[in-house]
């Protein structure tokens, strides 16, 4: 039986409506292209909305000595030099202009006394660099981009999920998806596609990520022949909520530490002294996350296995003004008044440094017509991302992806949709309804989260990773046979059954890359290889599909030009 589907055509299809997707859409529209934006949730609910602390950009409004060179150096050092240096250079260069542009589109940042955009301190940044709006910077950013895009005239396909990229020979020709509301299929015909689907945190049990963060874009790209890179580098944010159980993992913004918050263990000791006496609480996220984890593991944790984070030494009004959503979040969900006492915090899976390998200038992948930007793309952050660099990443590389995708679309002749690929895709989606036995997708998801949490977490070793990979193979078999109850109308169980497939692909890529990198660097900590290894400092792990097998190879990082080397080496 052939499933019916509707067809829509655009020059450019953008998958994902967070900061990167929306910024790409705006740029492509400005080039005169017809643009479709597909998102799994309603417009304006993407993960960007949850970003709190700010956008890193060397505007030098607060610290006059800041400039792009320092931002570049901080980013490279934070990423333990595994970053794509050209991306880091472009990012540091272009961020201030991207922030100014947001302001000109209506974003309202907090101000300095002389009326400029205010900037705050954050971990790993040498100067006060994060442009912010209290602790709801992401909301400000997404609303601004959303309204800009809507008025420029993109078509938004809300609550629509893409399940497969369609190709015409080697190049991209479109995508197959379904409407969450009614379960009907839709085929998009497009000359270029930009993947801006964000990260993969839902594969872990303790995460700050929403249900959408299932690695769809990375898995779609991988299936279509694109390469993934640096997949071992998963950021565990040091401060997630730990209590009560229902809120475990919800983000506590780094801005708490940026505004002067202090970390202590159950003995009242300010333990960061032992891990990074120079930067203390404002050390990079990888270091602080490991410190909190270690304190708890060695018996110095709080009642619920975390650390205390205290900002109550600051005036209550100041805390409420600078950290309003943290104030409400703790008061309403944990019965804690953060102006009076400490929060309990612990590491939470937060961000993916790795992702789809792209060209630094154009955000193009190795598949013709396929682009990627934002968290779904790899390169800018290397082995560890600095706070605030993700929002600027979305703007800088979202724009570049939109620009390049539009240029590509102009040069491309007509592409054809291969009906066999569509048929295969719809058949695969409908299979779970035909089974009367098999696991519930929720059960498989729960077991996947346990596997990744236990064996592919903050601290890793060969034995755990082997075991994790082994478990993942079993989970893949179970996931291929899950049972779905109910109809195709807005059915979260069915949606999860598909999302599981993406999560399993990216989870395997993470575990495989983590096993291969026999050293510790940034967010990747191997107990059995606790030190840096010079050999590994020049290598990226690359994952690509070879038939049904996942293959890993090494790629040597290009030598940095002399002028950039000098910047990085400066003290």
């Amino acid at each position, binding site marked *: 039986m052939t499933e019916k589907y509707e067809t829509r055509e655009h020059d450019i299809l953008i998958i994902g409506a967070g900061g990167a997707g929306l910024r790409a859409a705006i740029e492509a529209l400005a080039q005169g292209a017809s643009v479709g934006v597909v998102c799994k949730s309603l417009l304006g609910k993407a993960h960007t909305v949850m970003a709190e602390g700010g956008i890193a950009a060397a505007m030098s409004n607060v610290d006059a000595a800041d400039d792009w060179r320092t931002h570049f150096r901080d980013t490279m050092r934070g990423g333990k030099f595994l970053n794509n240096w050209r991306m880091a250079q472009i990012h540091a260069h272009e961020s201030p202009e991207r922030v100014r542009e947001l302001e000109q589109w209506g974003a309202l940042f907090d101000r300095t006394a002389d009326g400029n955009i205010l900037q705050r301190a954050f971990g790993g940044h040498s100067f006060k660099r994060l442009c912010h709006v209290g602790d709801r910077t992401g909301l400000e950013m997404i*609303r601004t981009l959303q309204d800009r895009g809507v008025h420029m005239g993109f078509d938004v396909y809300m609550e629509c999920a893409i399940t497969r990229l369609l190709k015409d020979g080697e190049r991209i020709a479109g995508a197959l998806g379904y409407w969450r509301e009614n379960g009907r299929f839709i085929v998009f015909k497009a000359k270029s596609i930009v993947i801006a689907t964000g990260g993969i945190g839902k594969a872990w049990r303790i995460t700050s990520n*929403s249900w959408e963060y299932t690695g769809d874009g990375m898995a779609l790209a991988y299936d279509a022949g694109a390469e993934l890179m640096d997949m071992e580098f998963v950021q565990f944010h040091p401060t997630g909520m730990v209590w009560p159980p229902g809120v475990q993992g919800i983000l506590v913004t780094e801005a708490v530490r940026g505004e002067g918050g202090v970390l202590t263990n159950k003995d009242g000791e300010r333990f960061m002294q032992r891990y990074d006496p120079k930067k203390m609480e404002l050390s990079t996220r990888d270091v602080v996350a490991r410190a909190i984890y270690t304190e708890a593991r060695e018996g110095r944790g709080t009642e619920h296995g975390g650390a205390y984070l205290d900002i109550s030494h600051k005036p209550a009004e100041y805390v409420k003004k600078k950290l309003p959503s943290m104030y409400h979040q703790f008061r309403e969900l944990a019965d804690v008044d953060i102006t009076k006492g400490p929060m309990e915090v612990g590491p939470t899976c937060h961000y993916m440094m790795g992702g789809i390998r792209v060209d630094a200038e154009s955000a193009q992948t190795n598949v013709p017509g396929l682009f990627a930007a934002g968290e779904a793309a790899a390169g800018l952050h290397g082995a560890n991302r600095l706070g605030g660099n993700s929002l600027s990443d979305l703007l800088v590389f979202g724009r570049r992806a939109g620009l390049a995708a539009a240029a590509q679309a102009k040069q491309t002749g007509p592409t054809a949709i291969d009906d066999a690929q569509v048929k295969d895709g719809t058949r695969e989606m409908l299979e779970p309804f035909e089974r009367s036995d098999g696991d519930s997708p929720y059960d498989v998801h*729960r077991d996947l989260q346990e596997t990744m949490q236990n064996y592919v977490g903050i601290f890793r070793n060969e034995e755990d990773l082997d075991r994790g990979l082994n478990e993942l193979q079993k989970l893949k078999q179970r996931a291929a046979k899950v049972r779905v109850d109910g109809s195709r109308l807005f059915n979260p169980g069915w949606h999860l059954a598909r999302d599981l497939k993406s999560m399993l692909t990216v989870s395997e890529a993470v575990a495989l890359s983590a096993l291969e990198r026999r050293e510790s660097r940034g967010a990747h900590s191997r107990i059995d290889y606790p030190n840096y290894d010079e050999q590994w400092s020049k290598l990226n792990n690359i994952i690509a599909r070879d038939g049904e097998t996942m293959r890993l190879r090494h790629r040597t990082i290009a030598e940095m030009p002399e002028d950039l080397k000098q910047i990085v080496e400066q003290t």
Partner: protein
Amino acid sequence: MADATFEVFRGDRESGELLEYHVPIAPGMVVLDALHYIQAHQAPDLAVRWNCKAGKCGSCSAEVNGRPRLTCKTRLDALPLDEPITVQPMKAFPVLKDLVTDVSWNYRVNKKILPFTPRPDAEWKMNQREVDRVQEFRKCIECFLCQNVCHVLRDHDKKEQFGGPRFFVRVAGLEMHPLDSLSRTQLLKNELGIGLCNITKCCTEVCPEDIHITDNAIIPLKERVVDDFYDPVRWFLRKLAGRKG
């Protein structure tokens, strides 16, 4: 561990009923946690919208015991547990399935609003005090609970004539932006029907972001409309200038 009893609306555009579920209570549990438990253990196809689970995205709006709430911020320990907790979709919007409603009308209204248009001579300097005033409106997370309780929409279904509190808040954010150059009073009066609001403040009461919707957005906007359209001097000047009223 004790159980809580839930009665959750299950149904679609045509019909539906409240179905009973039992959920073990955990410390600090919120209604959205319970809905997730029901999905994972009893009703895998229960349709619920959610994203951040931290009150930042405004996706999980529903009516809990008849009160419009974000389910991610509604604690079980704040509800009477000796009787069933009812969870129903927002009443002012058509049901798609279970707790998910069709809110697309809101996105259509938003498109009508003239975007931010800076003054050509803007120097992009602003002081925090003037920014504070507008930031209040920009806190809105678009949960649409204000739209859901507004009588004009909920009881009188005047969606064709009225924009609703959410969009008055949005317009207020633009009109009071220190560097914006447009006037949107005509839009407020004609297309968004601000005159239909009779200031019952229901919207303000349900706003999870504590935006003073009525006092700080709607009333000042109503005043602007009155100034522009019902002030005789301005009326005369407008006549002279030949602008449409």
